[in-house]
């Protein structure tokens, strides 16, 4: 077996089904409609504040006008609704990726980049997985796609998640996070704690913040630094094995909940992306014997679901434009749901390991 053959065998292995991806596509769409930020706030600042990061946004010389930004937000919501419905899914996946790159990028033109690129890459990669072939309007207007679900796009997505974490871990390692005297986590915690309504914090008083001020053990804070760096490197190391990768993501969901409760930063985009690796049919399927390639999904009625999703798109977009950000509530809820699913996965994996022993 050549190296190429081994690579092919690895990259095409996996047990994700078309229904898993179809359900995830809807979850992805709804989660983004709920949590994507308003971008019209950038019109509140003068052009002199512009410091676009290296890349295409450097072409910007002035803050775009308000109606243009509202138009972009409406287009983004419409594309997300169509993606959720699974109508022209491939086209919508590419369009959503483009609109996400643009709208998120416009939020970074003053020089502070949040790096939510995984949200952009997800539809771009999963359109190769034909994630509109089930639980979609596309599945009603065309013949079922023959053959098994392609696994390689999920493997590529897993790799990009691993790479992104590695890119976060490496600067920490080079920046001295593992030095015994650093307690970097403690530093960031207090930087947020002493700054009421920190710009990147979604909570004025995170629930665990008060308790954490009583933690004076240098070893405990240093241990958190080490665990953070190990987890971030570990995700890339786990990519070759599906069970290890999913376990690493499950631990990451608990880590994100901890960060949220400690400093109020919600890594919602990450949690949404991890959803691509959940076997959703396990939670939603009403008939587990259902074969691949069958159109639709028994738990979802196309008509009411479509009307519901379109209405949902209208309401969330209106709330966003009216500056009543639905993400204030949705962000913590999604992070919490992610941690519950992650803990459930870890418990099931633990039980199965114990049984095998």
């Amino acid at each position, binding site marked *: 077996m050549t190296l190429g053959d081994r690579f092919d065998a690895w990259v*095409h292995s996996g047990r994700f089904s078309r229904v898993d991806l179809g359900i995830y596509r809807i979850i992805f769409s709804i989660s983004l409609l709920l949590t994507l930020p308003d971008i019209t706030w950038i019109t509140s600042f003068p052009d002199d504040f512009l410091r676009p990061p290296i890349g295409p946004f450097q072409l910007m010389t002035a803050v775009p006008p308000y109606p243009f930004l509202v138009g972009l937000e409406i287009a983004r919501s419409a594309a997300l609704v169509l993606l959720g419905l699974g109508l022209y899914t491939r086209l919508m996946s590419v369009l959503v990726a483009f609109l996400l790159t643009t709208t998120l990028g416009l939020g970074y033109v*003053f020089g502070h*980049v949040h790096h939510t690129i995984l949200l952009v890459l997800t539809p771009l990669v999963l359109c190769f997985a034909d994630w509109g072939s089930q639980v979609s309007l596309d599945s009603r207007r065309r013949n079922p796609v023959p053959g098994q679900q392609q696994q*390689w796009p999920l493997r590529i997505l897993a790799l990009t998640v691993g790479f*992104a974490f590695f890119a976060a871990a490496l600067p920490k390692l080079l*920046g001295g996070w593992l030095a015994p005297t*650093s307690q*970097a986590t403690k*530093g960031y915690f207090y930087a947020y704690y002493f700054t009421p309504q920190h710009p990147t914090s979604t909570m004025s008083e995170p629930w665990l913040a008060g308790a954490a001020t009583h933690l004076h053990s240098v070893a405990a804070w240093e241990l958190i630094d080490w665990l953070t760096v190990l987890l971030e490197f570990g995700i890339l190391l786990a990519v070759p094995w599906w069970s290890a990768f999913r376990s690493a993501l499950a631990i990451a969901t608990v880590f994100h909940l901890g960060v949220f409760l400690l400093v109020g930063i919600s890594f919602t985009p990450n949690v949404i992306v991890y959803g691509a690796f959940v076997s959703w049919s396990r939670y939603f399927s009403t008939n587990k014997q259902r074969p691949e390639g069958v159109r639709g999904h028994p738990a979802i009625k196309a008509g009411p679901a479509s009307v519901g999703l379109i209405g949902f798109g209208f309401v969330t977009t209106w709330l966003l434009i009216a500056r009543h950000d639905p993400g204030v509530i949705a962000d913590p809820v999604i992070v919490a749901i992610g941690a519950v699913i992650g803990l459930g996965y870890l418990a099931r994996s633990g039980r199965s390991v114990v049984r095998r022993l």
Partner: protein
Amino acid sequence: MNHRLLARWMFALSCLVFAVSVVGRILGIDPYPALLMPSFANSSVLSGNTLTMGRAEFVAYFPDGSSSRVPADQIVPVTPDIPGPVLERALGPSKTEDTVDPGTKRWLKSRLQEVFPGQDITAVNVVWETMARSTVDGSAKLIRQQSLSIDLRSIQ
């Protein structure tokens, strides 16, 4: 193109994008779009049990000579993407009245007029304070204060 070839090309492309992104980050460039996540790389936020932090405050002056202090978050809308450094670049202590962009002066005057509706603002002081906060008892000590004065009388 069949899926076997496509998978190989996508794998190679992912590796290439990752390599370029990481090199950019190591060189201190934060490109966008790039295959990166926030790094929180600075490990020296604390010095022992002391956190050094800066804050800005605005002092508005009125035609009768009176003045009023305004916290920065009333002037700069609280958004996730305008942290202190962005404000510091435009109105920081290293700036002088002549080097502040005229557009920024107009913006600052209009923001102050929203805070003090119907009142004329003649000048503003942007006061930058550097504080040392203790993580043990939360006490704060002022260690540096710098300010930037801007005459707003000729700004329309």
